[in-house]
């Protein structure tokens, strides 16, 4: 199950906010989309799922398993969403419906795609809550989002996205809004879940250090265009574009040894030398 984005262009109003972006995510790959704010990374992700905001128009090609999904009617895309492709968003405070219990929201994913009963959905919700290491899963499912911490809410969001075992997960800055002390936990959760299930991952962030812990390949965006791409280890060692160099500078400010790849960087088994 692979995702291929070709010559994607997104216009809002008169402006091209994403211009001729192409990248591919083979089965099981973990690709990062990195860039500063406003580089178009989130919009690219939203375009894949057909969730662009009002007034945005996308053109180009997005192939999922060889099937063109850009421009499909919403009903068709809805079938893919959650089932084939899941998404986790940046802001846990607003991503969850405030007037529904957490368990019901997790269970909804299952009910939509597998048509199970309410009771079964709740049972699954407890199981998923456990999977994302939420404390006291049996009781937490009857809580409301405002009763949970930010990190817990994000775990709920992950549970919702993965409940139907999608083949691809798109994570849009999932840890950026979280407290630094919790980020590592959520990141490692994501990484292990993805690896265990053999899912493909598209990870969006502006922090190269974070990316290095999760992805093997990266696509660097600036002003809606791809300025560099390649293996993360290469980007860390020898970035060619100015943008990547700046990102590296920002990232290494928090790292211990700027020359060596930081601990926890994923080593791609088929490491190629350029």
């Amino acid at each position, binding site marked *: 199950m692979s995702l291929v984005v070709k010559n994607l262009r997104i216009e809002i109003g008169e402006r091209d906010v994403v211009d001729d972006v192409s990248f591919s995510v083979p089965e099981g790959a973990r690709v990062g989309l990195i860039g500063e704010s406003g580089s178009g990374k989130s919009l690219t992700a939203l375009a894949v799922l057909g969730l662009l905001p009002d007034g945005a128009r996308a053109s180009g090609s997005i192939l999922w398993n060889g099937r063109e999904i850009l421009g499909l009617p919403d009903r068709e895309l*809805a079938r893919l969403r959650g089932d084939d492709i899941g998404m986790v968003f940046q802001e846990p405070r*607003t991503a969850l*419906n*405030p007037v529904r219990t957490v368990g019901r929201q997790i269970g909804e994913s299952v009910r*939509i795609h597998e048509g199970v009963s309410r009771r079964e959905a709740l049972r699954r919700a407890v199981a998923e809550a456990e999977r994302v290491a939420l404390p006291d899963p049996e009781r937490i499912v009857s809580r409301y989002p405002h*009763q949970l911490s930010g990190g817990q809410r994000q775990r709920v969001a992950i549970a919702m*996205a993965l409940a139907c075992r999608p083949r691809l997960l798109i994570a849009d800055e999932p840890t950026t809004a979280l407290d630094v002390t919790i980020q590592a936990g959520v990141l490692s959760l994501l990484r292990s879940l993805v690896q265990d299930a053999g899912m493909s991952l598209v990870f969006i962030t502006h922090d190269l250090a974070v990316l290095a812990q999760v992805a093997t390949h990266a696509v660097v965006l600036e002003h809606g265009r791809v300025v560099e791409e390649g293996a993360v280890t290469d980007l860390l060692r020898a970035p060619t574009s100015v943008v990547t160099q700046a990102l590296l500078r920002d990232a290494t400010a928090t790292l211990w040894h700027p020359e060596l790849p930081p601990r926890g960087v994923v080593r791609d088994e088929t490491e190629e030398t350029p």
Partner: protein
Amino acid sequence: MIRYTLTRLGLLVLGLAVASVLIFVSLRVLPGDVAQLIAGTEATPEQVATLRTSLGLEAPLATQYLDWIGGLLRGDLGTSLITGSSVVSELADKARVTAPLAAMSFTVALIVGIPFGVLSALGRRRAAGTALSVAAQALAAVPVVWAGMMLVVVFAVWLGWLPPQGFPRAGWNDPAAAFRALLLPALTIGVVEGAMLLRFVRSATLQALGQDYVRTAAAKGLTRTRALLSHGLPNVGLSVITVLGVQIAGIIVGAVVIEQLFTLPGVGRMLVTDVAARDLPKVQGELLALTGFVLLVGFVVDLAHRLVDPRQREAS
């Protein structure tokens, strides 16, 4: 929740108290003499003075106020200076016209405002959606009185389907005629109020459309429309509850004017007549009853909102 209810109840009582003082004080500051008005121009000064004393107008203000409050607590809203009838009985009688009118108007307003508000937000990029929005804006700007007049011209003068004025003398003993008499008035108030509600619902729905959790719901596998309907609307409903109180107040106010236009023997028309006649005790009682009703509605709406929104309930 209990604490909140008690606090709001306290505010309600306080509001009533403040209202009573305001009403009482402002109506006592009267240029001209009520007793004189009643006694007429032929009366001698002595007769007027006797009348004043018997009406209790000679007592100090504070005593008069306390007398009034005492009566209120016993359920006595006062008696008419002119006809001697009790305010409570008059209100009960006239409410038989005003209450159904208000209920019908409210229903019309809900039907006009909520579904069309949502539709106009959903169809905001299509001509129909924009047209609805523009129409609602225009209707909300129409003075209720004029709307009534235009409806009378169309449905009563030109088409002759409905009576232009009046309420059957048999009252509700002739339900069909009574209903027909209230139809145009209710439509008038309902459509104008409904237009305002429509604008609010539209704006709330548009907001819901942009909410992150609606997008999350779509990301789980709902179509965008269903995500909005299923996740966004309940939250829209929540904010609509907050406006309902204002809507009801608006309907009552509209009823006062509309009853005048359609010569309906309701509370509103009675109030207007009494104010013009300077029937102080009656006006006092009626205004207090009306204000009390508005405050009560606000109280109930606040409680309902609090009950329905899980963020505000003390869950843990």
